[in-house]
């Protein structure tokens, strides 16, 4: 691992891309980019060090920018476009609403990147973002118009793209609301992987499609193991999504929330940041806490050291928790940024005056 790895935090915020840097004196604000422009998510291409900023202009639509020199310069690329005539539902034209997730192909797929979007299209580029193609197999699934719907946003959206590091053709995506889908042939066909999830908001909670996954994360060393923070609890799979088991904390805070992180050295260890559902959407008990399990979700511990314990309305969005070894960072909707260097057991506040934070990434 190079000495510069994970020494910066990139934040996608409502008012631009904010960079923090670890110096000998601690984590410090370094710079901002795209001041005033909402950055829905920041993507890192670990194959070449490129930074990607996905923007959501209020007026001018979604934009895509790439930096090859860690933010010194940026180049705009044409954002993905839905083909003419495509529809979200009958008579509702499909146009790009939001760029919600970014992922890269495998190390031997130079130039392959994926972008998940609202209203539900997965776009693929094989020329490092110069052009994008809508993945037809997913978009053309027969149930899409009837059984995919908006959850976190007005329309269905892909917020999780998880590419198996050992098999480029093996990819999971998660849609809010539809659920998890898997391809084993590079996107030529997709299958729902939602067995065991419960969608309490559907007439049939065990429906094959219609689940509100908030975030899906994989254990990189063994993709049979994945975790998800779902609208209806926390779930884990040990068989590649064939079956999901709820591991929420009964009568405890580790239940509802948006984000989740898994320890990439131990698939039994995961973190969540609980919130109060459904119509409240504030920190659990108006106190900020981070919950960790060390045993695959059987037990959860709450950590509060360094976090506000009263009058706290912070929500932590799905992409706003990042992990790098024993270090975690998260940002909240109320512009607070926290860092922990001890696996989430204690926290330092780095800023209380940032814009709403949408995404958090170590680089």
């Amino acid at each position, binding site marked *: 691992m190079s000495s510069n790895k994970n020494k910066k935090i990139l934040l996608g915020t409502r008012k631009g891309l904010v960079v923090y840097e670890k110096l000998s004196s601690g984590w410090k604000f370094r710079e901002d980019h795209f001041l005033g422009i909402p950055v829905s998510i920041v993507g890192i291409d670990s194959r070449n060090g490129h930074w990607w900023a996905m923007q959501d202009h*209020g007026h001018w639509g979604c934009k895509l920018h790439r930096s090859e020199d860690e933010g010194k310069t940026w180049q705009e690329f044409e954002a993905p476009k839905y083909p003419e005539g495509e529809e979200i539902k009958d008579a509702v034209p499909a146009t790009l609403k939001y760029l919600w997730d970014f992922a890269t192909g495998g190390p031997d797929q130079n130039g392959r990147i994926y972008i998940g979007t609202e209203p539900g299209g997965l776009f693929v580029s094989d020329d490092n973002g110069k052009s994008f193609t809508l993945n037809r197999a997913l978009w053309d699934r027969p149930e899409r118009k009837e059984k995919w719907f908006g959850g976190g946003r007005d329309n269905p959206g892909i917020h999780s793209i998880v590419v198996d590091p050992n098999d480029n053709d093996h990819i999971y995506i998660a849609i809010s609301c539809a659920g998890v889908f898997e391809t084993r042939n590079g996107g030529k066909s997709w299958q729902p992987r939602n067995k065991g999830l419960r969608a309490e908001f559907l007439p049939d909670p065990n429906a094959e499609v219609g689940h509100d996954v908030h975030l899906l994360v994989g254990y990189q060393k063994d993709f049979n193991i994945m975790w998800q923070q779902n609208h209806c609890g926390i779930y884990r799979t040990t068989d590649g999504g064939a079956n999901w088991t709820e591991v929420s904390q009964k009568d405890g805070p580790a239940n509802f929330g948006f984000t989740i992180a898994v320890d990439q050295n131990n698939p039994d260890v995961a973190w969540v940041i609980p919130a109060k559902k459904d119509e409240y959407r504030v920190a659990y008990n108006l106190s900020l806490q981070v919950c960790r399990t060390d045993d695959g979700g059987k037990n959860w511990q709450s950590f509060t050291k360094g976090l506000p314990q009263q009058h706290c309305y912070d929500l932590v969005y799905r992409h706003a928790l990042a992990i790098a070894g024993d270090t975690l960072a998260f940002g909240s909707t109320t512009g607070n940024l926290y860092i922990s260097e001890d696996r989430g057991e204690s926290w330092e506040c780095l800023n209380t005056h940032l814009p709403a934070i949408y995404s958090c990434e170590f680089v």
Partner: protein
Amino acid sequence: MKVHFTPALKRFVPNLDSIEVQGSTVADVIRNVETVYPGLTDYIIEENGALRKHVNIFINDTFIHDRKTLSDIVQDTDNVYIIQALSGG
């Protein structure tokens, strides 16, 4: 006709300035603007050809009526204004 742009767009197209273009509809105008300022259309129009929700186009002092296909008629003597709507915060 002459086309004028909100100064807000100069952040993305630094050399942007008012221009004279030809055309008989607003859609024609936008197509011809794109030839002068490549990429600008994506800031104004969605991929299905509709005007973005928070963008307004005036012909002289009147809002265009057709935001979906931009079929409003323009005359050579008209001024066309591409303006950002007031929204957000």
